């Protein structure tokens, strides 16, 4: 650490208030029902609200050709009716009680996120438990929701050049593992999933032993546990869901994919095969990611956006995942820019990382970003619930969340350099370019 900064840090430390650190591992209370449902409680009485998050261990990773996108589709159908609460009833009752919700699906997980006033707890637990196994999948409602998903795909992919390119690059880089396709799924699959296939998929993955329930906010833990037992204990455990056994074979040479499309500006994406989130290689590679891509002082931003003005922006990096996924470098090229040159500059910076590693200053900067990021993410009951859930699904336990900072602090400069050499290689690389059709305007 340079002397000047050390001196400043020492001076300012005296001004800061030592936080009372109300968010500790010990504050999280864990329960497990006989049917395998894991329950996390974290009380926080700052506001009279509760975040109830339910995470299922299912995502596009668990799909197969013909059924791509079905995890995300079930996420939508979870709001469309059970025998007890008809189509739309979940939202109507929740909003009447002052609650709101959203839900998301990723490669690895599906999350249901409810935010409501404390008084709505009983009703929310009743409705959440009901839809864990009770979906009707009414054929008419199903067809309408299919249209919604098709619209979401048109908006999110077909009318978004960067997303079209990203889908192509992912499918080129990953040939065997289900990460091959995007969470939204292929349009032809969206238009042809059969009701019985969707139901079978739902029955397989929506079981208490495949879920984690997280409650953060203003509630009484004794009563909350009673309510949860009353609603969830009778749901039977399911057989363990099938294991994803496909392992992506090693890539044996560089790949490139070109997309030609009417556009004003080109798009550019470079990816490398990367380790899983639980791999010991992940933290040092994630630090390299911050050095290359985090903020305007990062190496790639400085080179591409500031110095050579080849790109409007550059972003990406690692993504924590259950199985090995990709390291992304996404640049938004300026209109008219030579993509070959852009690519060469990125490769040059990667070469520098491989041969020279990163500096002490860059390492400390990454550590500070990780520490701040941890606390920025903990400012709301929603943030806390989300972090706990992600940690459960990706690392098997919420406890990982509290050891993450230490884990990253133990990384060495040599490890970071070694990761660059191990993963950011030519044979591991796929480059995608979207080239505006009919010349650039």
């Amino acid at each position, binding site marked *: 650490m340079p002397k000047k900064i050390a001196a400043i840090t020492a001076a300012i430390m005296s001004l800061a208030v030592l936080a009372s650190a109300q968010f500790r591992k010990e504050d999280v209370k864990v329960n497990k029902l006989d049917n395998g449902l894991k329950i996390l409680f974290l009380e926080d009485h700052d506001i009279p609200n509760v975040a109830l998050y339910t995470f299922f261990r299912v995502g596009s990773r668990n799909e197969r050709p013909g059924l791509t996108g079905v995890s995300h589709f079930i996420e939508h159908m979870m709001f469309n009716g059970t025998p007890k609460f008809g189509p739309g009833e979940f939202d109507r009752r929740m909003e009447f009680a002052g609650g709101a919700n959203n839900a998301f699906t990723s490669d690895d997980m599906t999350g249901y996120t409810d935010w409501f006033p404390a008084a709505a707890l009983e009703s929310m637990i009743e409705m959440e438990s009901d839809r864990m196994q009770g979906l009707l999948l009414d054929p008419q409602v199903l067809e309408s929701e299919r249209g919604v998903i098709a619209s979401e795909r048109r908006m999110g992919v077909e009318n*978004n050049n960067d997303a079209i390119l990203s889908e192509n690059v992912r499918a080129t880089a990953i040939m065997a593992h289900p990460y091959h396709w995007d969470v939204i799924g292929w349009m032809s699959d969206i238009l042809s999933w059969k009701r019985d296939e969707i139901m079978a998929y739902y029955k397989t993955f929506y079981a208490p032993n495949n879920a984690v329930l997280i409650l953060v906010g203003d509630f009484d833990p004794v009563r909350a546990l009673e309510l949860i037992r009353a609603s969830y204990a009778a749901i039977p455990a399911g057989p363990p869901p099938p294991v994803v056994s496909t392992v992506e074979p090693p890539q044996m040479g560089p790949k490139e994919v070109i997309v030609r499309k009417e556009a004003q500006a080109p798009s550019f994406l470079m990816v490398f095969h990367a380790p899983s989130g639980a791999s010991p290689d992940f933290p040092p590679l994630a630090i390299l990611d911050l050095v290359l891509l985090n903020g305007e002082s990062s190496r790639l931003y400085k080179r591409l956006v500031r110095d050579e003005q080849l790109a409007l922006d550059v972003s990406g990096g690692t993504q924590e995942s259950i199985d090995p996924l990709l390291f992304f470098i996404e640049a938004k090229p300026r209109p008219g820019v030579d993509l070959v040159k852009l690519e060469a500059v990125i490769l040059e910076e990667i070469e520098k990382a491989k041969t020279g590693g990163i500096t002490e200053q860059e390492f400390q900067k990454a550590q500070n970003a990780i520490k701040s990021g941890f606390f920025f993410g903990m400012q709301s009951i929603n943030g806390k619930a989300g972090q706990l859930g992600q940690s459960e699904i990706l690392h098997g336990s919420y406890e990982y969340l509290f050891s993450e900072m230490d884990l990253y602090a133990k990384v060495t400069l040599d490890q970071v350099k070694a990761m660059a050499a191990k993963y950011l290689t030519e044979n591991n690389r796929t480059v995608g370019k979207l080239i505006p059709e009919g010349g650039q305007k």
Partner: protein
Amino acid sequence: MNRHLRTLFIVLLLGALTLPAAAANRLPAPEKLTLKNGVTVYFLKNAELPLVSLRMWIPGAGLGNEPAALEGAANLTADLLMKGTATMSAEAVAEAVDFLGARLDISAGDEFAGLTAESLAEHFPRLMAIAADCLMHPAFKPDEFEKERKTRLDGLKAVKDSPGAAVRSYFTKAYFGSHPLGHLANGTEASLQAMTLPDIQGYYRKFYRPEKSIAAVVGAIEKPAVLDLLNSTIGQWKAQGAATPTAPIPPYAGPKGKKLILIDKPDATQAYWILGAPGYKLGDPITPQASVMNTLFGGRFTSWLNTELRIKRGLTYGVGSSFQTWRTGGVFMANSYTKNDKIGEMLDIVFDLLKKGRGGFAPEEIESARNYLLGQFPPTLETNASKATAYVRLAYYGLGFDYYEKYLAGIQSVTGDSAKAAAAKLLPADDFVLVVVGKSAEIKAQLAKYGTWTERKITDPGF
């Protein structure tokens, strides 16, 4: 993939924040501090996490104050402030902020420029030193100016590849015309080409002044430390010369009659639209009724728009409506998108719902919307940053720190009749602007029944 985009319901079309959708049951009263240079700072200690947030507004340095020829100057000036000072290069500023793992931003809204700073408490003093340096001693280097200008010119082209983003700029221009609130944050090709560095320096001297600036600090820091720190940083900011009086943003009545604009994007597989009409001004007594009414019409998942267009018919992934407010006026906006061959069906339903809405809502709907707004309110003031923003905002608009209490009480007392009156006034019938971006060849015939459209190509310059 998310079930829905929550941001759809809070379209930040005009840069300024509108906020009936925000505030905790109780916004704690802050302490009022005064810096040596007269700047007012509202302060609240919150030691739950080792974080501190600061918000500061510089009234008059927003888009709405730009001279017509300098469209885009407010935002460009704000960005340039972060690109080097008398003693630090742009790289040094970025490095220093990133090194702390902090967030520092200066950006322009409609009526003000805003400075945002937040970090771990241990890094906050250093962060404020950097922030003050950027604010008070900008270098305004020619090469940085050129970079910012070029980035904007290139960005203007790129945005047209994304119809969902482009439709917002087209709408802003169509709705406000030459009124200052119609200025686009990133300017236009013409304004950027004509802009010079002395223009930006002049803009800074005229509009960036401490006299009316308001700040708020919330987080893990004690009052004496806040005072010491801010007095030695932004408290050193002195006014240069006498203030030139700046004209307030003139009121804008909004459109009379129908204005229909079609932008042809031949490769679009969906048609994107925004409909806008006059709303109400910030702090208007109609706010609670309008909030309840809009919650039911297009402001939440079970709203009429979402029920009819998405839930029942699967026509779209996202649809919503919202109000945007500023000191002297406001706008109502609804927006969505659908497959090219469904745009006529979709817009028919929207117009039917607008008509039905003007007739009012059922009592149980009113009760549900009241509960929803009250229940979703506390999280909006949960974080340090949201509290600091609320203090600055309430102080700037002179609404008082009990504003949200009154707003919530107002929500509680909304009746079917008062919501109906708000709907009759605010859901447009004859006076509105409708902008559609899509593939003209496939949608034009469906649109003919709504009136006469002005058609342009997406590749035509400007918006």
